């Protein structure tokens, strides 16, 4: 039997639809603006898909933080481990996480956003594996399944030993609401993945060391960088390694620009980026897909808007990723915000995965 700590942040995602860019401390305002709770519905998709798995025991907080959804989907056995206040807060999430830790759960399955991931991670760290059902406004962390159905597949399929590292991201909500993306790496969580899809890792020798792969990618990109071309670097540690190879320091989650070996701008927002492009003859954008979710555009790099992609040209987008990350990212997606533009990316994308090495990967339709 697998012991699953199950938790819903009932207010997750409410702020998004009403333009609050996050719901922490803004529940009242979100409700006033007409937001309706949606996390519970997202969670129930996962729970419904878990009905036939008789190998699970659920531990959960009472009421809307978990117990209600489990009852409504008739999942059992259920053990209630904490009793949150009527209006649940981050503190209740942390209390539940503490109880999960004490009970020795195999996995914490939570439904929420980056804030929820952060609160849980602060308590359990790398001691317990976590997996997110995506429901938040911001999901920069790599701990989320691509959608609620896939979350169920991972819960059913994962073995305790098949865990990978994944980023938990910190986004400053107040700054974010002011149009400023202030982000940092909060920690590296342990996240389950489907072992069946990656069991041949031994075959591919050079995949074993991700840092080495990043260096190889960086060495190659450095080698092919052309004078007088502006390079826009997306988010992530692979892009950071590329900047480092050029002798520059890059923001981890920001969009930075370099040209002729110099850092031209850091942590660009869409408008500044657009203004910057006006004076450029030629620009290339370097991107890496986000964690296991596989988004090349549309998650964590919304600054690179459709008009920016059109201006630069799809053929000037270079996608990079370590073989390690690609292995855990079975599908890649483009969600630029403009579905017609997304189509123009075609069915396959070349992903630079090493020194003069690329992989041809399929781009899938959005689920």
């Amino acid at each position, binding site marked *: 039997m697998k012991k699953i700590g199950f938790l819903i942040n009932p207010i997750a995602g409410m702020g998004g639809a009403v333009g609050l860019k996050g719901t922490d401390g803004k529940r009242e305002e979100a409700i006033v603006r007409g937001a309706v709770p949606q996390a519970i519905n997202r969670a129930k998709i996962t729970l419904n898909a878990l009905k036939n798995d008789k190998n699970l025991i659920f531990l959960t907080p009472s009421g809307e933080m978990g117990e209600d959804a489990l009852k409504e989907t008739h999942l059992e056995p259920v053990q209630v481990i904490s009793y949150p206040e009527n209006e649940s807060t981050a503190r209740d999430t942390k209390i539940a996480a503490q109880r999960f830790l004490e009970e020795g759960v195999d996995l914490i399955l939570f439904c929420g956003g980056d804030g929820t991931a952060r609160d849980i991670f602060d308590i359990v760290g790398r001691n317990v594996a976590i997996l997110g059902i995506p429901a938040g406004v911001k999901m920069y962390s790599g701990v989320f399944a691509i959608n609620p159905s896939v979350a169920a597949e991972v819960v059913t399929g994962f073995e305790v030993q098949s865990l990978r590292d994944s980023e938990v991201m910190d986004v400053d909500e107040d700054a974010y609401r002011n149009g400023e993306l202030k982000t940092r790496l909060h920690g590296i969580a342990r996240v389950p993945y489907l072992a069946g899809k990656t069991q041949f890792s031994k*075959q591919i020798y050079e995949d074993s060391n991700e840092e080495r792969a990043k260096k190889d990618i960086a060495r190659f990109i450095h080698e092919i960088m052309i004078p007088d071309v502006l390079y826009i670097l997306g988010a992530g540690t692979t892009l950071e390694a590329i900047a480092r190879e050029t002798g520059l320091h890059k923001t981890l989650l920001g969009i930075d620009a370099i040209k002729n070996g110099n850092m031209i701008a850091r942590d660009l927002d869409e408008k500044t980026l657009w203004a910057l492009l006006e004076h450029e003859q030629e620009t290339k954008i370097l991107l890496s897909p986000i964690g296991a979710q596989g988004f090349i555009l549309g998650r964590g790099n919304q600054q690179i808007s459709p008009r920016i992609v059109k201006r630069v040209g799809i053929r000037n987008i270079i996608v990079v990723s370590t073989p390690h990350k690609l292995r855990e990212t079975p599908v890649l997606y483009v969600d630029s915000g403009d579905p017609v533009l997304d189509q123009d990316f075609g069915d396959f994308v070349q992903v630079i995965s*090493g020194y003069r090495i690329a992989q041809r990967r399929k781009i899938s339709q959005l689920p």
Partner: protein
Amino acid sequence: MQTKILLDEEQMPKQWYNVQADLRSPLDPPLHPKTQKPIGPQDLAAIFPMELIRQEVTTDRHIDIPEEVRDVLRLWRPSPLYRAHRLEKFLKTPAKIYYKWEGVSPAGSHKPNTSIPQAYYNMKAGVERIATETGAGQWGSALAFATMLFGLQCTIYMVRSSYAQKPYRKSMMHVWGAECIPSPSTKTNAGRAMLEKDPDTPGSLGMAISEAVEDAASHTNTNYALGSVLNHVCLHQTVIGLECREQLAMVDDYPDVVIGCVGGGSNFAGISFPFAGDKLTGKHKDVDIVGAEPASCPTLTKGLYTYDLADEAGYTPLLKMFTLGHDFVPPSMHAGGLRYHGDSPIVSRLVHDGVMRAVAYHQSEVFDAAQTFARTEGIIVAPETAHAVKAAIDEALKCNKTNESKTILFNCSGHGNFDMSAYDAYYAGSLVDYEYPDELIKEAIARIPKIS
């Protein structure tokens, strides 16, 4: 309905065919890595017996195969030529597909065609030990077999990633009495330097060549042997194409298309050079000769035709060939035998001159073809060979469109009995379609004054 076309043992070729005799102009000479001046026989004498050096440079059209060598080749030669009736039927193609089955050799591939004469000439020259490298293990096992027969010791530097992936190739080398060492190793200066630079390197053929050459050069009783690329190796492999030409003549046929997979180029050279000779001398001007290579290491389709080193450390002469750069470490795809940055200088020249052409394939489409072949003809081919199968199927499907009944001949160079983990990966959906980002590289080369 004849399936196998067989020659008697005495119909096995008595001479190798040397395509150098029929080239439109002489090959560009190999250059000394330090002086960059053409090398002479004496520069190679430290690691090769004189007869092989002579074969490397001669422009004689025919070279006798020693009777002692033919005696060993008789163990499996002449190899059968098959008409692929079942594959043709499955493809519903008007084309006729023939394949030369080289997997019948003791080592399971075409490689013993040259390991036997190389071991023989070294034995005749009084050499006691041969050092060599091996990628996927085909060449290493073939040389282990040959050196055993002629009473020589054998040391094999096996590319580290293959050493881990293909334990049974290593076991074969042990059965035939050879020593097999993962490369880069701590046994040579070159190996130690590479490990110091990158302790986690998966190794490459270029690195293993450096180690074997150093081993040979630093021991007087030891010579070096190479399983592909060099002219004398291609020469020895021409028994394949010479037999094919005889076998096809027995059924009154001649190929419109000749196909082989290409890593260093020797099995492709083996099946194609006699036909390339027919093309060069005007006997069959229209024969289409196609080399099939991996998209991840597309030397002939994406490389530059220039002088480059044959190894990583720079011990070997500079050869004029198609190359991706001697410092390029191709990804560890399953067709390990095709992971080579360069190519045979003769094959390169013939491609450059338009006598031959090349195509490149991704791993998964190659395994699709291998599966089709196994499920029609029965043979489970090596991942390297699967590239040739893919090209043959593609050519046949073209005939479906044009309704031509072309005769397609391909070299079925080896079995995949030790490559089942690659097939497992194919069925698990975990094959990675590596490719070479040539557009980015070319754009950069065109606009950056010098790219190292």
